[in-house]
């Protein structure tokens, strides 16, 4: 394979890399051009996304750089989701960060760098590529978490994220070294071929360590502790970004590692994934109940949702992987929407509020905002007819098809616990007396993106099921 063919296959990453570097230069000369750079970054994402869409439509399935990087529908569908989430995170940020005094041109550049890392993650077919992508994404994320650097909470979030993330990377690397030791290769295909048959203790250790490192990245229990703190401390647009794009990337990465690298040892990792999924669902649901801060609540909600997504992986089938994609797409819409509503909660002085008591009686003072947040909450809870229900349905369908009935029953029963705190948000907004704290926001971007995402989560979203099903099935097929 010659270099040109490889470069063609990584063109989205090439575009993003050059643009990121160029925009970094622009921002070095002109410090106060955050908005312009943001717009250019969104345009770059659109350009790269066009290439990805092109690959996706042609169902491209090719390896670049001697089997280190795969351009297939699985990666491309993940990239589409990542780019959309990143673009929304770019669009909603400027006004918020300006208010916090932290709108600098580095923000869009870091998001772009992070996107490159995520693109590499989802395309990685080798442990080394995987690690490079993961670290590129993580290092950008650490900086983003502490982006409002004069805010103590933001700095704390960045530090916590960095220390714990470093620990997780270490665990992951340790697992990878064990795997390399037993398999004699870092390529997923070679690992899968080498580790077939009876799994020895050392190999099981390797698998457990790799999965633990990845569980940290997707904030699955019991490696979820950093999530509420980082989500609460980071500036809200950054939190929205954390909850969407990197989650898609890390979950897609987990899918690929589990299926392509450990595909011959499904029995070993299946129990781990089942345990992690159930723990995430239950810890995410129970942990959220007492939360008074909406960002923390959404952090627990994301832990909870990751648990449901992992049920698809636990099934270990093509149907399960396809279901995870459907869920991920809906999850991105739900979670971004929720954060966008959160960013519109400003009080009389224009300061952002995120307490549960601040939204009391919101349905009387800001009915549209309250209705949208209610849609997102019911959707996250998976109550039909909202679109979140469909995500839950497909993962449970995959679990039932894989004969994991106890997992399905426990998981869905635990979703009722989760429904409790989503209902609580609705209750505070609709049943309580107005706290009269929140006043009208004036950010049109937020209003419109929020409304669009709410519409996607309403029953109208069901119209997208055929397309979503087709794409996710196509993506899942490339893994098997």
């Amino acid at each position, binding site marked *: 394979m010659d270099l040109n063919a490889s470069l063609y296959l990584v063109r989205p990453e090439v575009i993003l890399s050059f643009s990121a570097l160029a925009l970094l230069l622009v921002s070095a000369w002109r410090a106060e051009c955050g908005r312009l750079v943001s717009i250019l970054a969104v345009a770059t994402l659109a350009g790269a996304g066009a290439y990805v869409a092109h690959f996706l439509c042609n169902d491209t399935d090719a390896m670049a750089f001697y089997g280190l990087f795969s351009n297939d529908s699985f990666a491309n569908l993940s990239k589409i989701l990542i780019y959309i989430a990143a673009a929304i995170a770019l669009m909603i940020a400027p006004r918020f960060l300006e208010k916090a005094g932290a709108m600098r041109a580095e923000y869009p550049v870091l998001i772009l760098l992070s996107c490159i890392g995520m693109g590499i993650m989802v395309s990685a077919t080798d442990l080394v590529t995987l690690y490079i992508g993961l670290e590129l994404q993580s290092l950008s994320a650490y900086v983003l978490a502490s982006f409002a650097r004069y805010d103590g909470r933001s700095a704390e979030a960045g530090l916590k994220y960095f220390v714990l993330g470093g620990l997780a990377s270490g665990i992951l690397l340790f697992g990878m070294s064990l795997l390399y030791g037993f398999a004699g290769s870092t390529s997923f295909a070679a690992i899968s071929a080498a580790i077939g048959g009876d799994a020895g203790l050392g190999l099981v250790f390797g698998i457990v360590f790799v999965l633990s490192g990845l569980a940290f990245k997707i904030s699955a229990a019991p490696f979820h502790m950093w999530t509420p703190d980082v989500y609460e401390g980071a500036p809200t647009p950054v939190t929205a970004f954390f909850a969407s794009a990197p989650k898609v990337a890390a979950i897609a990465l987990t899918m690929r590692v589990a299926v392509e690298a450990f595909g011959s040892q499904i029995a070993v990792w299946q129990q781990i994934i089942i345990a992690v999924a159930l723990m995430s669902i239950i810890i995410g649901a129970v942990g959220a109940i007492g939360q008074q801060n909406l960002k923390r609540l959404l952090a627990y909600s994301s832990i909870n949702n990751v648990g449901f997504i992992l049920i698809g992986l636990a099934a270990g089938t093509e149907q399960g992987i396809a279901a995870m994609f459907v869920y991920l797409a809906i999850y991105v819409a739900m979670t971004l929407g929720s954060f966008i509503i959160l960013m519109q909660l400003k009080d009389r002085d224009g300061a952002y509020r995120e307490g549960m008591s601040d939204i009391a009686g919101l349905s*009387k003072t800001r009915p549209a905002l309250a209705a949208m947040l209610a849609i997102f909450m019911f959707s996250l809870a998976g109550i039909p007819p909202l679109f979140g229900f469909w995500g839950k349905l497909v993962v449970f369908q995959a679990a039932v098809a894989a004969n994991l009935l106890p997992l399905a029953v426990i998981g869905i029963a635990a979703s009722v616990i989760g429904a409790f705190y989503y209902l609580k948000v609705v209750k505070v907004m609709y049943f309580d007396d107005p706290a009269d704290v929140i006043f009208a926001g004036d950010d049109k971007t937020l209003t419109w993106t929020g409304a669009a995402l709410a519409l996607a989560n309403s029953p109208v979203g069901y119209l997208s099921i055929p397309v979503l*099903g087709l794409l996710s099935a196509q993506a899942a097929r490339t893994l098997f």
Partner: protein
Amino acid sequence: MNAGSIPILSIMLAVPTLAAIACLFARAEMARIIALTATLFNLLLGVWLWLSYDPAGAQWQFVENAELFGPIGWKLGIDGISLTLIMLSVFLMPICIGASWHAIDKRVGEYMAAFLLMETLMIGVFAAQDLLLFYIFFEAGLIPMYLIIGIWGGADRIYASYKFFLYTLLGSVVMLIAMLWMIQQAGTADIPTLLNTDFAPEAQKWLWLAFFASFAVKMPMWPVHTWLPDAHVQAPTAGSVILAGVLLKMGGYGFLRFSLPMFPEASADFIPLVFGLSMVAVVYTSLVALVQNDMKKLIAYSSVAHMAIVTVGLFTFNQQGIEGAIIVMLSHGLVSGALFLCVGVIYDRLHTREISRYGGLSINMPKYALLFMLFTMASVGLPGTSGFVGEFLSLAGAYKVSTWATLIATTGIILGAGYMLYLYRRIAFGEQVNADAAAMRDMDGREMWLLAPIAAAVLWMGVYPETFLAPIRRDVANIVDRIERAAPAGDTKLKDQDPTTAKYRVGGHEEKAAEGSH
């Protein structure tokens, strides 16, 4: 009139949905008018549906099928059982809107929107022919009802709304897993196909239990009925009407549509469970109703007792019992709805539900006392009212299966007479001890218009039940055919073929008609 070419069911779903969206943006007065117009229009469509329905035609009529949502088919269609329940829904809706005309004065647009959405979802539940579509409609009803109880409810509304939501949700989610398993096994979510799919008896047990968890909560059966009194007491009048009138029927409809025909063997195996719970419910909730001081709570408990007679009737595995159960459902929908309206009428005047705050209302409110008397009698099951027909048929059917269950279930009628007449005596008769209650004016025109149609329907059903039995007879016969292979032997000493006793058997001709149809 040719309703075959027009997607009339989709239109009936679309009208309230669109009206609901319009109500959200309308001012109070406008929202009321929009809601009333939309529900009346849907009632007209319902009448048209009723008139165009051919009881001798295909089993599923007005069938629609659109591949809009991928695996979830937009499949609609009704048989006679669905038809009667849809009629009940569209009949009660304008009455609910009318009942809220003055009683609701805050956030009217949202209130009307919630009710219109409820109407869409209720019709959807009864018309859905796709398992997933059914589940979506079935579950979605939780959201508007949660808001109705929570926003416009009484003092303890938040507790009641949570309890309602979480109780019913927990019941239903397990059913979802069972549905997914069935779809997996049968390869289709099409309800008419699933009705003729035989699942292995071992699997049936689990599936039956999963469905039972959902429908028993919805029904509600003892001991999972405790959400109902709370929800009823706290809900606004119209909310109680719709809850008692239609939402509870979803449980019975579920048993009839899913549990019985899809899992006949398991249903037969679980008869002792169903009968046992129903017997306890009849006696226990009747006794509880007897000591209530709160009017709404009393009627709520009476609902549980009546629904227990429905479950007994449904699980008799014979034509009479099941027909009777359906008639009890319809009758209870009308009567308990009317009783909640009656409570609403005096609640609007005095703002208390405490029975002892009233008394002697027959003196100053004669029209009210008359209608209240009629519905009390219908609830008791007086011959000539709808209550009698249904209870008689279902208990007669039950007698063929279990003498003891029938004996105990029948005490419900006596106890029912006890608590209803006691309620009526305390409210309408006796001394006028409370001056403010004695000063209440009689019902006005609006209130008469709400109750009179129900009174007419109750009498009609009592005097000439054939109108309501005709559309369901063939569909019940289909179900009986389907489950016959698992039918329990029964403890009756009478031989079915014995010519000497033939003339004493009740409803014998119906069974012959059923036999003739296949």
